[in-house]
């Protein structure tokens, strides 16, 4: 069996999500080839070649692939698909954008956000915001899969795969890139951070959110997250949202500040190793999943916490 793994990469190189999805791909079994697409993808391809378990890296550097537009990228993957039994990618916004398109072009039902590989054709995946886990067996000859990376450890280095160049399949020209507004931050990325501190609506304003959450994040070297309520209220940007429809994370330490714990939020963080909940309401559902809970005024607790750590 041969597996094609779609890498997650951008101008800054190869994302760690690739190495996590690689672990899932390796569990399916077979040769794993990594596809790295985009202008300047060569550096990410070299990084992918060093990952343990990769037997070949394909790099496509066409300008049409620079901005992850779904149509040319899907056509590229489909053009390579004859040689592969499984096409897999991390469940990032870019892979979630393109892989269902690939699946439909191949007349295959995608298996979304797997959290466990049971066998080469059987997988576990969460449904209903993670309140149920389904075991599904694919009957399609070719399989298209996205991987919930929070459920898999990153593959290590130690490989030395050959890097081959492939050409783009062409661009149907139905979409074009206008602009990016990407947050630049010195903090770690949410999906790979060891420590995350998240804020909820109880913080009351964008200013308060920054004033009390960010110093603790800086001191702990933590990534910053937010509940949907906080993002909807404009206290935090959309790419900080953790939950069913935002990012799914599983850090070593997750600190939930002023987050009540709606099921949609729990779906995004309940696999964290240690959960701390700080809340004024002692009945808040977040305490039912927290290892350590502290009830009190957030604006007293957090500055004190920051001083003592």
């Amino acid at each position, binding site marked *: 069996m041969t597996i094609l793994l779609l890498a997650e990469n*951008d101008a800054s190189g190869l994302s760690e999500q690739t190495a996590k999805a690689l672990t899932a791909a390796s569990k399916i079994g077979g040769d794993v080839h990594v596809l790295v697409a985009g202008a300047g993808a060569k550096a990410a391809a070299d990084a992918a070649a060093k990952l343990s378990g990769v037997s070949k890296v394909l790099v496509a550097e066409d300008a049409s692939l620079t901005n992850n537009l779904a149509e040319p990228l899907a056509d590229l993957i489909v053009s390579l698909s004859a040689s592969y039994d499984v096409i897999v990618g991390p469940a990032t916004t870019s892979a979630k954008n393109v892989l*269902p398109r690939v699946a439909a072009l191949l007349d295959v*039902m995608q298996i*979304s956000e797997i959290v466990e590989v049971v066998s080469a054709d059987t997988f576990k995946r969460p449904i209903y915001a993670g309140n149920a886990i389904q075991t599904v067996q694919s009957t399609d000859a070719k399989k298209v899969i996205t991987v919930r990376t929070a459920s898999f450890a990153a593959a290590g280095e130690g490989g030395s795969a050959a890097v081959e160049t492939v050409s783009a399949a062409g661009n149907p020209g139905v979409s074009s890139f206008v602009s990016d507004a990407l947050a630049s931050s010195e903090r770690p990325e949410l999906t790979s951070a060891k420590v995350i501190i998240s804020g909820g609506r109880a913080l009351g304003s964008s200013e308060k959110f920054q004033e009390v959450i960010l110093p603790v994040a800086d001191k702990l070297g933590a990534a910053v997250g937010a509940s949907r309520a906080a993002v909807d209220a404009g206290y935090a940007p959309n790419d900080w949202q953790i939950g069913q429809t935002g990012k799914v994370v599983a850090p070593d*330490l997750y600190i939930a500040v002023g987050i009540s714990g709606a099921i949609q939020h729990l779906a995004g963080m309940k696999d964290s190793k240690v959960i701390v909940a700080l809340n004024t309401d002692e009945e808040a559902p977040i305490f039912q*999943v927290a290892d350590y809970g502290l009830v009190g005024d957030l604006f007293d607790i957090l500055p*004190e916490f920051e001083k003592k*750590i």
Partner: protein
Amino acid sequence: MKIFVPVKRVVDYNVKIRVKPDGTGVELANVKMSMNPFDEISVEEALRLKEAGKAEEVVVVSIGPAKAEETLRTALAMGADRAILIETDDAVEPLAVAKILKGVVDAEAPGLIIVGKQAIDDDSNQTGQMLAALLGSAQATFASKIEIAGDKATVTREVDGGSQTIEVKLPAVVTTDLRLNEPRYASLPNIMKAKKKPLDKKSPADFGVDTAPRLKVLKTEEPGGRKAGIKVGSVEELVSSLKIAGVI
């Protein structure tokens, strides 16, 4: 221009679902059902585009049991012009949904198709992308802003690192994210009016689509539980607990 909006009847987002003890699925009997929240956002966006003079007609479609008519009536009460119900009691996977929708789109020829980015029951996040693939049209997923000018749409998308703006040629498929808009509530007069709006009924066979599932569901189970831990009495106690746990 005509805007086409598929809507799905799902378990209400406030319901805490229960897995059946025999592992055959999720308990759906006597559970409150509603329109998938992302589809409400899609309907709202279509209505706003119509109100802004960018579209003449909003057509909603649902694939599901006879009771999905209620979901369509909700969309009509919000302001959609007419509805199509493709009736089936089978569970239809995203790929088959996309094939049926392609059949409806071929017949209706809309200029824009607005689809919720995911349904909150099976959390697949596939249908819009699959429909765009089958139509051979452009896709703009996870939209937080849509602007129509001539035969193009400029769409801002919520992506992992922030946002991305792209331009797509119409007809295109746009999938909606949470921050696109806040859906309106239907007023009582509009709910009454919706009862008289046209609703066509069809079946998957009318579009020649085989809805046999490609994924066999072997088992549905509760997720591994997480026990509530302890409440600490002070920040000092919290910090020392976290130090003992080795996480700070």
